[in-house]
C-alpha cells in the first residue's frame, strides 16, 4: 500500500509523508514545508485525527511516532521528559518498574501517543483524582510552523518563569505548533485499589452518589457514569453485573492506603442508597474494565457513516439534564459516559443524519442554556459544517485567531481544523 494512504483524512491524501526520528529532523521537515508552502498535519497514532474539521489543505503528513525516546526520568523527583511520539502504554510500562505512573487514561490509550494526547486534550476517568494532562504537563518543546524550536516550562514541578506555554499547546489540536517533547510530573501508584459498581433505575439517584464523591476528602480515583447501552458494550468485554431495569451505572474507583480505599468504598455504598445493584468488582475484572471504559462512547477514526460523537461540558449537578437530552430522540439510541465529578459527558449517536442533527442541536442548546459548552468530537464533515464545531463561540475566538496568526502566520499547521484557524 502506498504510504500516503495510511494518512488519509476525510478522503484526502497527503502528497508527502515524513517520519522524522529526531527533533532536528522535525524542524528540518517543517523548514522544508515552509519553503514549499505545504500545509502540515502532525500525526501520532491517528486515533483522534477525526477531531475538528478535516484540514482544508493537506500536503505533508508529519508522523512523529518514531520520535519515541525517554529523554530523562528522575525517579526521585517524580518527573519525566519524553519525546512526543512515545506511546502512553509504553511509558507507563516503564514507569511501573519504579512504582510510578503518568496517571492518564484517554480514549484508545493503548495506542495513543503523548503528543496526540496533549494536542487533543482528551482526558479519561482518572482525571477525577489526578487532573488532566493539562495539570500534569510541566514542560513542553514545540516546533513552530517555520521549524523554529521553542520550549516552555521545564522539569520542575513548580515554575512561573515566562508564559505558561504548556497550557497553550495543550488541546490546540496541532494548530499552533508540533509538540516534539513533553515533561510531566508523575504520581506514585496507589498502594491499594478497589472498584465498586452501582446500578440505578433513575439518573437522579446516580447523581446523589456522584455529587457525594465530588466532595469526598478521600478523592476517589474515578467516578464514571455510563448509560445502559454503554454498559452493554463493557459487558461484551468482561463479566459484569447485568440488570434490565438499570438505566444508569456508576463506577467508583478508589486508591490509596488500604484503610482509605475501604473507607471510600463504604461511603460510596452509603451514598448509593437508591442503587439496585451494589457490587465490589474482583480485581482482574476491574483491571480489564478500566482499560476499556475510557474508549466507550468515543467514535474511532475514521468514524462510521451515520454516526456522531460529541462532548458536553456541564456542571456536575447538571448530569441528569444531560442524560435526559441525550436519550431524548428515539431514532438515536445514544451511548453516553460521563466523568461524574467533572460534568464532562461523552456521547455517541448512530442513526439517520437528519435525526443526528436534531439530537446534536438539542444537546447544543442544552449546553448553551446551562452555561456550558458543546463540541463535536467525531462524525461526518457535513454535520460539523452545518452545526459548527463547538458552541458557544465567544469573543475570545478573536484572541485565539490572533494567537494563531502570530505563531503560524501562513496558516499552514492543520489549516481549517478549528473552523476559524
Amino acid at each position, binding site marked *: 500500500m502506498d504510504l500516503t494512504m495510511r494518512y488519509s483524512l476525510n478522503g484526502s491524501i497527503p502528497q508527502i509523508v515524513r517520519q522524522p526520528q529526531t527533533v532536528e529532523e522535525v524542524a528540518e521537515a517543517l523548514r522544508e514545508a515552509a519553503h514549499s508552502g505545504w500545509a502540515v498535519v502532525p500525526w501520532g497514532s491517528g486515533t483522534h485525527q477525526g477531531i475538528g474539521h478535516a484540514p482544508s489543505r493537506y500536503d505533508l503528513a508529519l508522523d512523529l511516532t518514531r520520535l519515541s525516546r525517554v529523554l530523562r526520568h528522575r525517579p526521585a523527583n517524580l518527573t519525566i521528559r519524553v519525546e512526543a511520539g512515545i506511546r502512553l502504554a509504553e511509558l507507563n510500562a516503564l514507569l511501573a518498574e519504579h512504582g510510578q505512573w503518568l496517571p492518564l487514561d484517554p480514549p484508545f490509550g493503548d495506542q495513543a501517543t503523548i503528543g496526540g494526547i496533549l494536542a487533543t486534550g482528551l482526558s479519561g476517568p482518572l482525571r477525577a483524582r489526578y487532573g488532566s494532562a493539562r495539570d500534569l504537563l510541566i514542560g513542553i518543546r514545540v516546533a513552530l510552523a517555520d521549524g523554529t524550536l521553542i*520550549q516552555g516550562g521545564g522539569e*520542575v514541578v513548580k515554575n512561573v518563569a515566562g508564559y505558561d506555554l504548556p497550557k497553550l499547546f495543550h488541546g490546540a489540536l496541532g494548530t499552533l505548533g508540533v509538540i516534539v517533547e513533553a515533561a510531566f510530573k508523575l504520581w506514585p501508584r496507589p498502594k491499594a485499589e478497589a472498584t465498586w459498581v452501582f446500578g440505578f433505575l433513575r439518573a437522579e439517584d446516580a447523581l446523589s452518589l456522584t455529587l457525594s464523591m465530588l466532595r469526598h476528602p478521600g478523592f476517589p480515583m474515578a467516578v464514571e457514569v455510563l448509560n445502559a447501552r454503554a454498559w452493554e458494550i463493557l459487558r461484551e468485554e468482561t463479566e459484569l453485573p447485568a440488570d434490565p431495569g438499570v438505566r444508569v451505572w456508576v463506577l467508583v474507583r478508589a486508591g490509596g492506603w488500604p484503610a482509605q480505599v475501604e473507607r471510600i468504598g463504604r461511603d460510596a455504598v452509603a451514598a448509593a442508597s437508591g442503587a439496585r445493584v451494589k457490587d465490589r468488582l474482583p480485581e482482574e475484572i476491574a483491571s480489564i474494565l478500566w482499560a476499556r471504559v475510557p474508549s466507550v462512547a468515543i467514535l474511532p477514526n475514521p468514524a462510521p457513516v451515520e454516526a456522531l460523537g460529541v462532548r458536553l461540558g456541564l456542571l456536575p449537578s447538571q448530569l441528569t439534564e444531560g442524560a435526559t437530552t441525550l436519550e431524548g430522540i428515539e431514532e438515536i439510541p445514544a451511548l453516553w459516559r460521563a466523568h461524574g465529578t467533572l460534568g464532562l459527558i461523552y456521547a455517541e449517536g448512530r442513526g439517520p443524519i437528519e435525526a443526528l442533527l436534531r439530537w446534536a442541536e438539542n444537546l447544543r442548546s442544552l449546553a448553551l442554556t446551562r452555561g456550558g459548552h458543546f463540541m463535536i468530537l467525531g462524525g461526518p464533515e457535513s454535520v460539523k459544517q452545518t452545526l459548527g464545531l463547538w458552541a458557544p463561540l465567544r469573543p475570545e475566538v478573536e484572541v485565539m485567531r490572533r494567537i494563531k496568526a502570530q505563531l503560524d502566520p501562513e496558516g499552514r499547521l492543520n489549516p481549517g481544523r478549528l473552523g476559524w484557524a
Partner: protein
Amino acid sequence: MKRAQVLQELLEIFGPRGVLWEDHHLLLYEYDASIDKGRPDFVVFPTSTEQVAAAVRIANRYGLPIVVRGAGTGLSGGAVADQGGLMIVTTRMRRILEIDPVNLRAVVQPGVVNIAVSQAAAAHGLYYAPDPSSQKACTIGGNIAENSGGPHCLAYGVTTNHVLGLEVVLPDGEVMEVGGAACDWPGYDLTGLIVGSEGTLGIVTKAVLRLMPAPEAVVTLLAVFDTVDQASEAVSAIIADGTIPGAIEMMDHTAIQAVESAKRCGYPMDAGAVLLIDVEGLPEGLEELARHIARICEHFDAREVRIATDPVERERLWSGRKGAFGAMGRLAPSYYVQDGVVPRDQLPRVLRQIQEIGQRYGLTIANVFHAGDGNLHPLILFDERDPELTRRAVEAGAEIIRACVEAGGTLTGEHGIGLEKRDLMPLLFSPADLEAMARIKAAFNPENRLNPCKMFPSTKMCLETWSRRKARMAEPVRYRVAPPPAEMEEELWI
C-alpha cells in the same frame, strides 16, 4: 497630554475618593514587597468591571501605561509602576459573588483576599487550596497574575490548577470571558495562558475558582536534623518513596535561630534543619502514613520526630514557618528573598552551593522553603541602607538563581519574574522562546500598554528606567529624600 485633562476624566468616572494623583498619596503606591520602586502618575480604585474598562480606555486615549495592583504583596516588582502611568488597584472589587457548594465552585472579584475564599467556603466544609504565605493579605487577582503557590501546593497544585474561568478586560477596553464553571472549554486554553502572565495579557475582573473538600484530619510532623544535607536527603527519599504529603517545608539553622527568638514555637535552637510535614485527608490510615514518613526521616538520621495531631500543637509548629520571613528582622534590617526551583533530587547539592555563595559574598543566608516542591526561598540578609551590601545581596541572588538553573531548575516557582528577574530570563529561554512569548503577548497586548517592561528582558524603552533603578538602589537612604514637586501641567513623559 496634560495631567489635568487625564485627572479630569478619571475624576468623572471614579469621583474624588476613587483617584489618587498627589505625590504624597502616590508615594504609597510606588512599591510592592520587592526591592523595586516606581511611582505611578495616577491611581484609581474601580469597583466594577465597567470602571476597569473605562480606566483602560482613558489610559489608551492618553497613551498611559497600565499597571494593575492587588494588595501589593508581590515579591518580584510586578505591581511596580516603573514606567509611571495609570495604576488600577483592585482592592475595592472584593465581593465573593457566589459559592456553589454542590459543584465546588466559587466566583469572586479580583480584590478578594485569598483566605476570605476559604473562610466563605468553610461553612460548607470546603476550602480554596492554594495558600501563599501572604494569604491573609494577598488577593485572588494577584494570585492569578503570579500563578501563586504555597506550602500545600505540593499535593494539590498551584493557582492555575484551581482557576476554571476568568472575565478579563483586554488592553483595548473590551471585556472577554475565557473558560468558565464547566471544564475543558473548546479552543485554546486562554485561561491557562492568562494565569501567571503577570498582568501583561489582560486585567482579571472576575474568576471562577475550584473549591476542595476540607481534609477530615491532619497530622503534622516536625523532624529535627543535625544538618541540612540530612534533611534534604530525607525530602528526596519521601518523594521517591511515592508518598506525597500535603506539605513539606524546611527551615535551616539560621532560620530556626530567627524564628525561635521571635516566636518560641519549639524548634531546637541547635538543630541544623527542621522539616515540617503535613499529612492529611481521611483519618483512616493517616497515622500509619505519618509513622511511615517518620521512619524515612529517622533513616536519614533525624534525631527527633514529633508527631502532632492536636490542632493547637500543630498550629504552634506551623506558626514558626508562617512567621519566618517576619522573624528575619531579628537577624538583619533587610532580606532579599529568591524563589528558584530545583529538581528535588538536587536539593542537597544546591543548598550547599547557596551556603557557599553566601560565604563568598560575606552574607548570611537563611533558608525557609517549600522543600517538597524543590522550591527554594533563600533569604539573603543585608542592610539596604548600605549600598555595598545591597549590591552584594542582589548579585548573590542572581548567582543563586544561576545555580538553580544549572541544576535543571528554574528562575522562579511562585513569585514571578516581574522587574526583578526579567534580565535573567535568557538563562532559561532562548531568543526563539522569548520571541514566541512576545508574539503571544502581541496577540493580547499589541501596544504593550499593560504592565510594560515586566517579565521579559529590558528593551530600549525600559532601559532608561532600569538605569534609574540601579542608581536609586545605590542611594544610601531610600525614603528620606523628598521627590521634586510635580507640576500639574507637566508633560507626561511616555
